[in-house]
């Protein structure tokens, strides 16, 4: 499949005016319509959605109704009723994320084109293929945790299997990092209306990071402190196989941002880039566009000295030491006198020693500690309580 130099653009905005301004941008082919009762952060009422859809259609744009909430059965039924009242002929597609909502839409509105949001998890081709088979979406919205090399391989694999699904990736907007149905702002600000659209910043006291926070009728949403800004990389995004780049403009002053974006898209100069950035958060991010190494720190999460290797023969754990007198071991495997044991302390000290004597707790001497349980052996220097004890194979 031949790739164009830039992907096409899908836009969303907070108001009808924002949408009208946004769809004037060169390259916009699609508008996302976010109803207050259907979208996570929707701001359009029923009439505004209908009007915007009609206007967008007249301009030759694709109209997509966003229903990306995670919902209970009752809420799905309510949402379905609302969608019927909107008149589906206004829309070219419905965008969903909850697999239950996707199932409902597939069954209740089988003729509607589906767009499936796979932004939460879904980092492997096996799963993505299965989602496509199950729901036959025309579009999948990929996670921004997927780096471009991986997207390229996903695109190639889908092409090789004649999948015609289009791929979308957020290129400009806030990164949603937390979504709860609970209201977290209005309860602590009694003067606010719990049904209002509330915007705040949550600053982490220890780290001083400023996270945008939104509460509305659907719950509370927190965004990363840095705005995602991939506009300078649109050619790379297209080359990786992304068909549609999304500009989520609803958190910005669109009447200032959109002209700056238009200028940059028309002429990507440093001046236009600077002007565009000035309308975004003070700090910007590429997210995981280049790479994702978020598993590399896992080795630091626990004391590696106490991690039992897969093939090791763990005899037990030291539960008490008495200098120059004894070690008390709680054992999981039998051991015997003259066995060579290795002790790895929580602090990392490693000691090797032979078992010189074995006693039970009442002081009786034994040649072997056959049953698992509490045993005492000769003291070994630098071994502390909590040390792991392994049996060493002797050559």
């Amino acid at each position, binding site marked *: 499949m031949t790739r164009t130099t830039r992907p096409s653009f899908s836009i969303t905005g907070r108001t009808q005016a924002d949408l009208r301004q946004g769809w004037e941008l060169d390259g916009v082919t699609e508008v996302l319509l976010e109803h207050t009762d259907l979208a996570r952060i929707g701001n359009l009422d029923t009439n505004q959605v209908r009007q915007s859809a009609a206007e967008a259609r007249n301009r030759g744009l694709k109209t997509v109704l966003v229903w990306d909430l995670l919902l209970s*059965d009752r809420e799905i039924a309510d949402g379905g009723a609302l969608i019927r009242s909107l008149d589906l002929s206004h829309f070219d597609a419905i965008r969903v994320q909850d697999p239950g909502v996707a199932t409902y839409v597939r069954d209740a509105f089988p003729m509607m084109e589906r767009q499936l949001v796979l932004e939460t998890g879904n980092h492997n081709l*096996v799963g993505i293929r299965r989602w496509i088979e199950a729901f036959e979406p025309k579009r999948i919205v990929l996670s921004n945790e997927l780096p471009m090399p991986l997207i390229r391989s996903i695109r190639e694999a889908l092409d090789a299997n004649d999948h015609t699904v289009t791929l979308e990736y957020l290129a400009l907007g806030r990164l949603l990092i937390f979504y709860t149905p609970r209201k977290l702002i209005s309860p602590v600000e009694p003067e606010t209306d719990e049904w209002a659209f509330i915007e705040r910043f949550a600053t982490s006291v220890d780290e001083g990071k400023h996270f945008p926070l939104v509460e509305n009728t659907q719950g509370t949403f927190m965004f990363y402190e840095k705005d995602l800004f991939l506009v300078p990389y649109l050619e790379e995004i297209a080359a990786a196989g992304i068909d549609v780049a999304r500009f989520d403009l609803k958190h910005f002053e669109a009447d200032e941002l959109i002209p700056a974006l238009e200028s940059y898209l028309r002429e990507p100069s440093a001046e236009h880039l600077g002007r565009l950035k000035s309308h975004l958060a003070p700090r910007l*991010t590429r997210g995981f566009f280049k790479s994702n190494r978020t598993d590399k720190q896992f080795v630091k999460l626990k004391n590696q000295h106490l991690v039992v290797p897969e093939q090791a023969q763990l005899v037990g754990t030291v539960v008490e030491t008495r200098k120059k007198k004894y070690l008390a071991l*709680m054992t999981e495997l039998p051991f015997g006198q003259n066995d060579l044991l290795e002790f790895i302390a929580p602090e990392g000290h490693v000691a090797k020693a032979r078992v010189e004597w074995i006693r039970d*707790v009442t002081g009786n001497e034994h040649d072997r500690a056959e049953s698992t349980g509490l045993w005492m052996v000769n003291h070994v220097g630098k071994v502390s309580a909590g040390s792991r004890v392994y049996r060493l194979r002797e050559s």
Partner: protein
Amino acid sequence: MVGWPLGPYSVSQRDRLVEYRMTKPEILAPAGNMFKLQTAVRYGADAVYLAGRRFGLRQAADNFTIEQIHQAVAFAHENGTRVYVVLNGFLFDEELEDLPPFLAELESAGVDAVIVSDLGVLTTVRRHSNLRVHLSTQASALNSHAARFWRDMGVTRLVLGREVSIAEAAIIKREAGVEVELFGHGAMCMAFSGNCTISNYTAGRDSNRGGCIQSCRFKYRLSDERGGAGPQDHYLSSKDLQGIAQVPSFVEAGIDSLKIEGRMKSPLYVATTVRAYARARDAAWQRQADFGVEDLFRELNTMSHRDYTSGNLVDKARSDSIYLHDERHEPNSHDVIGHILEATENHLAIHLRNPLETGDRLEMLVPGQDIRVLATDTLKDLTGQRVQRVSSNRVVLLPADSIARAGFLLRKPKSKIDAQKDDISHDTDDAALIQHHRAHAG
């Protein structure tokens, strides 16, 4: 159903519930390591969940080697307990490639099910094994449509999202024809599970592959503008779920499994929660009008915890489910002392996690029975010498006890007042539920 204390459902929900078949829910306990697994089994868990070294969500837990999984399954099955292995990370392709050999080991060990959240993992498990598959709460299955989808993908049980009530879970079970599992106790994500990536972006650690830094527990300052002044509190932090008063509703609604959160929690937590919930479940199953909910509240307050909430079990979680720290809150009435390493005719050998002195009130948690107080008049060290006080990380010898067994957990009240307290002082928002229970118990 006449006379049985119905759960706190609305009338319409209650009417529907009589259609459901009562079920004795399994008590499903966390097993962060072998000792915790043994503890869970000992104290009455019907099933445990654990993780191998990879593919799960608790990279900081000890977790199990393949050899240990074999041992764990053998031990659990000998005692009639099922073992589920969590594979609930959102995996990348290269990690999926490593999964089939691990699945073969799990099948060989005889694990009873695996718990997945990622459709790619689910597909891989189905392709490469005959393992039963449960859907993790990380997938946020919240409705019967999703349940049917996952059922059609091969899932036999759904661990429903924590946003689902007991009544909703019963409907999902009926509509989709799958087993349902609900969290009954433990810490809760404030966000929809699987929908939080704070750690990914702020700390470079994938929260959905085991690296969560629990940013929702941090203190934040709220303000109208970026960096502005404002009040500080733990706005994103959820109280802990505590559903002991709702256990009869679990039974009545036909919930298949009551899950206890906490693979990172202590053995004492495992013992206390399993013992309490198993007692409540057994009483509810036997339709005992009064299952001692007040005693069980008190038991659950012996452990360190955030303030309790019933979460979404009854109704949607409200503003009082946010854990805005109350400095006056007493987090736990008891301290862990340790566990019994060895119980013989001559002595009890106890591994101490906290100091013990002669005369201390030492409480032993006995599976299925009341708390038993052990004599501490005579403490000896491992050389047989009498001692007045023994510090932590030591072994102390006590006189033999006929009930005591290796592995039993021990605790002591933090104050003598707590030791003598008769009245409950539960810090929960479930007071109304206790009243409700009392009203129906007669």
